[in-house]
């Protein structure tokens, strides 16, 4: 069974294709969304999901969130005593999703389609694939998120359609233009900004809070994780409130004092103006690349939790002069699309006649030198071989020449990106080819062929016609680490015990109550403390019925003082 996984910045979800439709799998709490948050508790065990998210406030130094933004970088998050790369933390989330799926399906899950932001570069994709491997999943396909969302939307359409997927997630922004005709779903263009997402909108609110109470908090305190965690949580709550109301309130309790800031919608919209303006360029770019006029689009599909924000919806409405489609659930569409892809992959009969073609979002090319007429050599020029937004799989060939008559080898360095200078692009690998001496002071030509396959696997073939020499380089979408290293890291993650499923709900509630305790003052705070004590007593008695009852009571009280839990 192949599962489809949306590994998001804020939330993740897992779904399967079954009986001709996509089915989202609930986690142990009964939710289809699992917050992408990892926390290590006092005993060294790992918590993933809602319970971990609550601990962002109570145990900020042992909890990590939004690590997808650092995927593929060497940046480490320190949780407790150990430090983890983004792919390790993602692997822990994937393991949790895997076990949820296994519990639901009653069979082992070993293969997955995992979605990535379309604008993830090769390194970020490699890291995602690596996370899957670390979690014990064979990654059958990395699917671009907007493409997945489009699949979720387009799979039920019968007619021809052109639509734009506007995917603003927690940490990344993707725009894809797709065309559907005669059972072909074709991605026309994909662009984006992989450093823009809902988190940035939270940061805007957090910044307002900090600016307002800078002196009260003190500059030094503003660097402590505890305070930062609280401000972030308050900002997140306020953003949610702003999604339904005309104003939201950020409340932070710090050193037994309550700080409150009310933010109106207009105020928020103004503060977020820079971010909203950044939504435009990728859209324009995609329209240009896809040669599609905005008027010709049949629908604008909003995907990603951040598109629930009215300010974003308003910006989109203004941009296109019409309302975006409400046909898909912005939080679930990507996971659903991943499941559809899993079904396509398994050649499910219900999907037989649909073919999906995607594009490579980045240009791929080599480093060349230009010889200037005065004999100077300028190195580091990027010469694209496969241009961005080329339909994949694709092969392109370009010929290059040696620089000097006595040159005996040519080094091809492979890069990905759009800058004319290779130093601004992402280096993927290199390959040398020996060449024969040039005849009569000329140069030797080397034919360079790039083949980019459907899984993002790039193959470079070099052919020197004068000598018949051939070289081949396969740039795998895997980290170049040894199997031993992979096994070792997998082992290290396996040592982290995940909490049993049956206690997950109680644990999440406990974490929530602990957070509430920190975020309230006075009588309420004492009431929360009492509830925690009672709840602990009930848990110790291990009477399932009593535990259920107590859970309901505690949730009800917490809901009453801070509103229902959101995802």
């Amino acid at each position: 069974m192949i599962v489809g996984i949306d590994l998001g910045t804020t939330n993740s979800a897992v779904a399967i294709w079954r009986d001709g439709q996509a089915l989202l799998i609930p986690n142990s709490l009964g939710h289809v969304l699992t917050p992408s948050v990892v926390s290590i508790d006092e005993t060294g065990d790992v918590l993933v999901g809602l319970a971990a998210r609550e601990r962002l406030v109570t145990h900020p130094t042992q909890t990590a969130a939004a690590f997808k933004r650092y995927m593929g970088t060497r940046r480490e998050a320190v949780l407790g005593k150990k430090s983890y790369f983004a792919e390790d933390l993602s692997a822990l989330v994937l393991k949790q999703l895997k076990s949820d799926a296994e519990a639901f399906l009653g069979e082992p899950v070993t293969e997955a389609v995992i979605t990535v932001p379309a604008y993830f570069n090769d390194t970020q994709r490699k890291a995602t694939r690596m996370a899957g491997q670390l979690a014990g999943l064979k990654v059958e396909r990395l699917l671009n998120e907007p493409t997945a969302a489009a699949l979720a939307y387009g799979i039920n359409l019968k007619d021809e359609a052109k639509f734009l997927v506007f995917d603003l997630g927690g940490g990344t922004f993707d725009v894809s233009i797709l065309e559907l005709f005669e059972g072909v779903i074709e991605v026309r263009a994909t662009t984006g900004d992989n450093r823009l997402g809902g988190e940035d909108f939270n940061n805007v609110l957090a910044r307002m809070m900090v600016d307002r109470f800078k002196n009260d908090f003190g500059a030094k305190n503003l660097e402590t994780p505890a305070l930062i965690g609280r401000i972030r949580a308050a900002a997140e709550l306020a953003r949610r409130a702003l999604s339904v109301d005309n104003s939201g309130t950020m409340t932070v309790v710090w050193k037994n004092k309550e700080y409150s800031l009310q933010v109106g919608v207009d105020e928020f919209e103004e503060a977020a103006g820079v971010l909203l303006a950044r939504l435009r360029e990728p859209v324009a770019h995609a329209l240009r690349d896809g040669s599609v006029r905005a008027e010709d689009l049949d629908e604008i599909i909003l995907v990603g939790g951040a598109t629930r924000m009215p300010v974003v919806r308003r910006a989109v409405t203004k941009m296109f002069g019409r309302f975006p489609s409400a046909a898909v659930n912005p939080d679930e569409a990507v996971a659903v699309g991943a499941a559809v892809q899993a079904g396509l992959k398994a050649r499910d009969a219900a999907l037989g006649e649909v073919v999906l073609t995607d594009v490579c979002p980045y240009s791929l090319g080599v480093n060349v030198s230009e010889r200037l007429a005065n004999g100077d050599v300028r190195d580091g020029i990027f010469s694209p071989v496969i241009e961005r937004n080329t339909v994949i799989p694709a092969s392109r060939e370009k010929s290059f020449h040696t620089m000097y008559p006595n040159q005996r080898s040519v080094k091809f360095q492979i890069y990905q990106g759009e800058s004319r200078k290779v130093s601004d692009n992402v280096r993927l690998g290199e390959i040398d080819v020996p060449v024969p001496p040039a005849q009569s002071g000329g140069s030797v030509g080397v034919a360079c062929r790039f083949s980019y396959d459907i899984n993002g696997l790039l193959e470079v073939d070099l052919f020197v016609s004068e000598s018949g020499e051939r070289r081949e380089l396969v740039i795998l979408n895997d980290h170049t680490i040894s199997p031993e290293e992979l096994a070792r890291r997998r082992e290290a993650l396996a040592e982290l015990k995940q909490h049993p499923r049956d206690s997950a709900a109680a644990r999440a509630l406990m974490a929530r109550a602990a957070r509430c305790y920190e975020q309230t003052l006075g009588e309420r705070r004492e009431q929360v403390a009492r509830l925690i004590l009672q709840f602990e007593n009930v848990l110790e008695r291990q009477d399932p019925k009593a535990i259920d009852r107590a859970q309901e009571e505690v949730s009800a009280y917490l809901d009453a003082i801070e509103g229902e839990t959101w995802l």
Partner: protein
Amino acid sequence: MAVTTSSIWSILDIEATDDASTIRRAYARRVKIVHPEDDPEGFKALRNAYSQALAWAARPTASVIVHATTPEAAEMSPEEAVVTLDETADDTLRSLTPRDPGRVLSLDADADENEEQDMAPPAPDLARVRRLEANESEPPPATSVERASIRTLEGADDTPPPPTVQRDYKAALAHLEGLLAAEAEPESGALLRDVDDALAQSGLISAHMEIEYRLGHLAAHYWPRSDPFVARIVAHFRWADARIDDPHLQQAVSWCVQRDKDLVFLAEAQKRGSPLLRFAPQLQLLRAAPELRKPPSFAFLKGFIQPGLLGEVRKLLSEIRAHPTLEAEFPAPAQKAWWRYFNNQRINPLGLWIAITVVGAILGLSAIPQVAAHPPNPAVVSIGALNDVATMGDRQSLWIVCQAHSEFAFENCTAPFAPPAGVTKAQQELAVQTTSGTEIPSSIDMAGYPDGTNVAVQIDVSHLVAPLPPGTATPQTPVEATSPPTQLPVHPVVVVMDCHTGSRRSPCRIVGHGANSHRINAKALDALERAERSADRAVHPR
């Protein structure tokens, strides 16, 4: 990949057709059999055929006329046919754009747009061709000549522009272009009114895209007239921190951003009374006064009398250099001459003597064949009104470009070449006419051209271009493929030759390079100075 027209249709399994929807249906049918997952190679071929067939169907009807007369047309794949038309259109339009003669010259006839940091105002005619391709129904905003030529290309489609409600952004932009192109200096308030009217309607993404594109290109093309609104549009579209990697827009945007910065610099400097303010009179002089357009002829004497002024001019030149769009605003020949002047001053008599010795030594050594350094380049041209000398990417020919200008002594440009025996040449005025001849000219007749005309001379030096000396460190990176000699090069390299000034005469050396003539003036000066410096080092060994 040689795909013939017939194989496109056989891969798609249909008869040749102009109907895009038939092609799409055929592709959709075939792609389910030639599935990208199961048969990647088959899919690639199918995809190739599909896009070529679509290009064929979408080809402008004019291309049929263009190629119907040639027997090769039948053999030509749709893609080739379309490309050829584009080139033709490009050239035609380009040659009809004499708006800014000093800067229009563009040696990269293939319209290579990817040169990094290309500060040149992109030729808007390209943009218009693109819009033609995109089949947009807007009226071509151009001079009457251009409009006529576009109409011709469109097949004399003279439909009126779509009716407009009030003054929409298209009208505002057209009006703006009219103001910019007019002979009279436009009033900045009027320009801003047009710009603001257009910007006010940029809410819709489609309008936003069009306005961004048009304003960017107008600003880049009509500077310095566009100065009053550059800051406005840079701020509106947030270009300063936008990451625009769309090649259609990138050049114009990066130019505007730089221009905006430079204008701010200028304004700041004037406000704060910075050193630049002290140059203000010289700035004006350098721009306008004929006496400063050329360095003093009795250099040492004037330098002695007025060292302060010369120092200031020198500082001014450096400041200008740090702000490329300001640099481009001043007459390049004047700047060039001034730099030459300052650089020459640095060679003291002792240095000269050492130089003579060293040159003598080299000449002596070069008698031993194995140690021969680069042979001197063949052409000797004086630098006066010489704009550019270029070698093509293949280094097979030199281009010399002179600009006709009544104020400059272009007897310099007609000054004697020292044609080595057997050098052939092709002389042509850029994109306008071709003259014949087999000998390198000893002079170029500039008399027949109006001021500002650029005249390009191509000299075939293929057999004179020496390979680099053996033993040079072997760089390991490949070099970009050069085009076949029969085509115009894709990446022409333009160079400026360092030749004699005034009465002093020296063999031409190639010292600078660039992508086109506009940029060359800036870049070449840099290279020129570098070359001078290294010459200094050569004569002052440490």
